[in-house]
């Protein structure tokens, strides 16, 4: 389930299940969105991106969905593995090329 911890919302998922991480963005004029993964002690790492003229994009085991009507972005991870444990950030790129990161969600994999 999903819970709000002291610092970050945490999503706990059983290994092998699918994970869905959600993000609400702020600027309806943003034209590009990115998901980053940050493992403990490391810098963020690009996972997948999507342009505002698309509503879905698939990568390897990951899918990003964009709902511009409600300014919502989601990251779906299929068959979650222990290596998927990390903090996931969405980022929006505004028209003036400014990048704004979301607050982050910690994904915790249960054995």
């Amino acid at each position, binding site marked *: 389930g999903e819970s709000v911890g002291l610092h970050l919302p945490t999503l706990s998922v059983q290994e092998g299940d699918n994970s869905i991480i959600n993000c609400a963005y702020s600027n309806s004029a943003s034209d*590009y969105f990115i998901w980053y993964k940050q493992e403990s002690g490391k*810098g*963020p790492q*690009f996972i997948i*991106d999507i342009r505002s003229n698309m509503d879905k994009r698939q990568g390897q085991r990951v899918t990003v969905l964009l709902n511009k009507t409600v300014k919502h972005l989601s990251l779906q991870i299929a068959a979650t593995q222990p290596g998927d444990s990390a*903090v996931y950030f969405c980022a929006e*790129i505004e028209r003036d090329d*400014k*990048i704004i990161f979301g607050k*982050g969600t910690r994904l915790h994999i249960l054995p």
Partner: protein
Amino acid sequence: DTAVSQTPKYLVTQMGNDKSIKCEQNLGHDTMYWYKQDSKKFLKIMFSYNNKELIINETVPNRFSPKSPDKAHLNLHINSLELGDSAVYFCASSQSGRAHNEQFFGPGTRLTVL
């Protein structure tokens, strides 16, 4: 080989001191960035340099001064350190100055100001 490297990895210092963090990328990228990540994991861009020229300077105290001796290096100098400067600082690089381009992040420098 590490694509984006930062030194030091950890930096503990007293309030009022001046310190520098170094960043180097060997990806041949034109653009480099500095980000600050606070204790709540909130990540915010501070500066961006494209071919040694400053292109983004967010609302950052002027105690922070980036210096780019060449396009492979972007160092961050901080004067008169304050408690609130404690954070993890990430350097990143990308092919060009557009934020749409994939950014490659360094491992971070954890700064603790006592």
